[in-house]
């Protein structure tokens, strides 16, 4: 087990180890030693707190680029993909949505915060609860065939579970939460450093709806109904990426484990 002495070798490697520690890249044994070392040394503690502040401010303030539809079409055109996919020709809903987007973009690029109903506020509260908990999930796994049986003992139905890590949205775990006094499945996904909660529950009204986007308490929320279930995805992730997350989830395969 390494000890952190005052040798020149340690002096050189300590800052690097501190960074790796804060990035969650060290194994628990070294992390434990390093944590003791940081607590014992006020200067190290100060450096650590500076690094934490830096990581947070970068994550919160420096946002990713946004892809315009023009640029997307340009890419599609350049690889010759634009002639294909007649199935993707916009429906009137999509056209209406894009008109809305264009209007919003013209009016300053902000999403209109729709009037939040109490259920969506519940969703936002559940999301915040999960963020202040030690971990946002009760079972940590990116495997559908681990998550699905785990739900089986806790919910009277099998929620749809999909791992989207290949598309940059790794599934990190799951839990059961309560929304509007009903138990719901909560799948927890990551996008870069952002946490996405995806809640689902069965509903009696069996019609599907297209997705609705809104902002509640500063979080982006996307909700829809599909196959007898009601879904909410919520995150501090930007609206466009959250929307593409829900699209990926919707096109991923259903609840049945293929094995």
């Amino acid at each position, binding site marked *: 087990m390494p000890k952190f002495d*005052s040798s020149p070798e*340690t*002096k*050189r490697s*300590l*800052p*690097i180890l*501190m*960074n*790796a520690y804060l*990035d969650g*890249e060290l194994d628990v044994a070294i992390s434990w030693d390093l944590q003791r070392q940081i607590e014992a*040394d*006020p*200067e*190290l503690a*100060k*450096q650590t*707190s*500076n*690094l*934490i*502040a*830096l*990581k*947070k*401010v*970068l*994550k919160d*303030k*420096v946002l*990713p*680029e*946004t*892809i315009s539809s023009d*640029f*997307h079409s*340009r*890419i599609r055109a*350049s*690889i*010759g*993909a634009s*002639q*294909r*996919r007649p199935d993707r020709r916009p429906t009137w809903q999509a056209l209406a949505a894009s008109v809305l987007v264009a209007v919003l973009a013209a009016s300053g690029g902000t999403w209109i915060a729709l009037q939040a109903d109490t259920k969506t506020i519940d969703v936002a509260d559940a999301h915040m609860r999960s963020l202040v908990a030690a971990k946002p999930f009760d079972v940590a796994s990116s495997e559908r065939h681990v998550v699905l049986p785990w739900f089986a003992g806790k919910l009277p139905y099998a929620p749809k579970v999909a791992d989207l*890590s*290949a*598309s*940059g949205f790794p599934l990190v775990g799951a839990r059961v939460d309560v929304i509007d006094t009903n138990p719901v499945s909560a799948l927890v996904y*990551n*996008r*870069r*450093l952002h946490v996405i909660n995806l809640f689902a529950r069965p509903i009696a009204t069996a019609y599907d709806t297209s997705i609705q986007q809104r902002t509640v308490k500063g979080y982006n929320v996307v909700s829809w109904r599909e196959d007898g279930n009601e879904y909410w995805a919520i995150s501090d992730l930007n609206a*466009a*990426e959250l929307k*593409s997350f829900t699209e*990926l989830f919707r096109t991923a395969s259903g609840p049945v484990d293929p094995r």
Partner: protein
Amino acid sequence: MRNGNETDRFASVVEPHLTDALTLARWLTGDRSDAEDVVQEACLRAFKAIGNFAGGSSRAWVLTIVRNTAFTWLAKNRKFKLVALDELSDDERELLEATSGTNNVVVPTPEDVLISRADLASLNAAIADLSEEFREVLVLRDLQGLDYREISEITGAPLGTVMSRLTRARQRLIRKLTVQEEK
């Protein structure tokens, strides 16, 4: 009408990462419209090579292509000088020594407050001011959330190099943000 499979693969392997691709290219080139050119060219390369994608992280695969395209593009379109990065400047050496915590003057300023108050303009300027090798690891880790192994894979730098570059990049940013605020 041709290449149906490849176009579909492109849509599922590459297109989900366009935001990440553009963000990385933007930070490497320093300019949005240059970044769009780079991403477009990278997409073409990715499309041609889509048959070689063997599974695994499509995100790391796409970002590797974007990164290499960006550096080729920079070499062609700009005169930029390579800095010997593994040579520490005096400033950095001083800072590294300070970090080790021995006989060090205690700074009374609560620096982390200054850092958290940094505005977007000074953050952008501080990141843009980093040398390319430092900037790419910082962007990949702190803005895009990739882990060390993926960053090593994308940049082709050994893990230890990734770790020390990231450490130094963050030290520079901290110094820059706290010094700026004191003025």
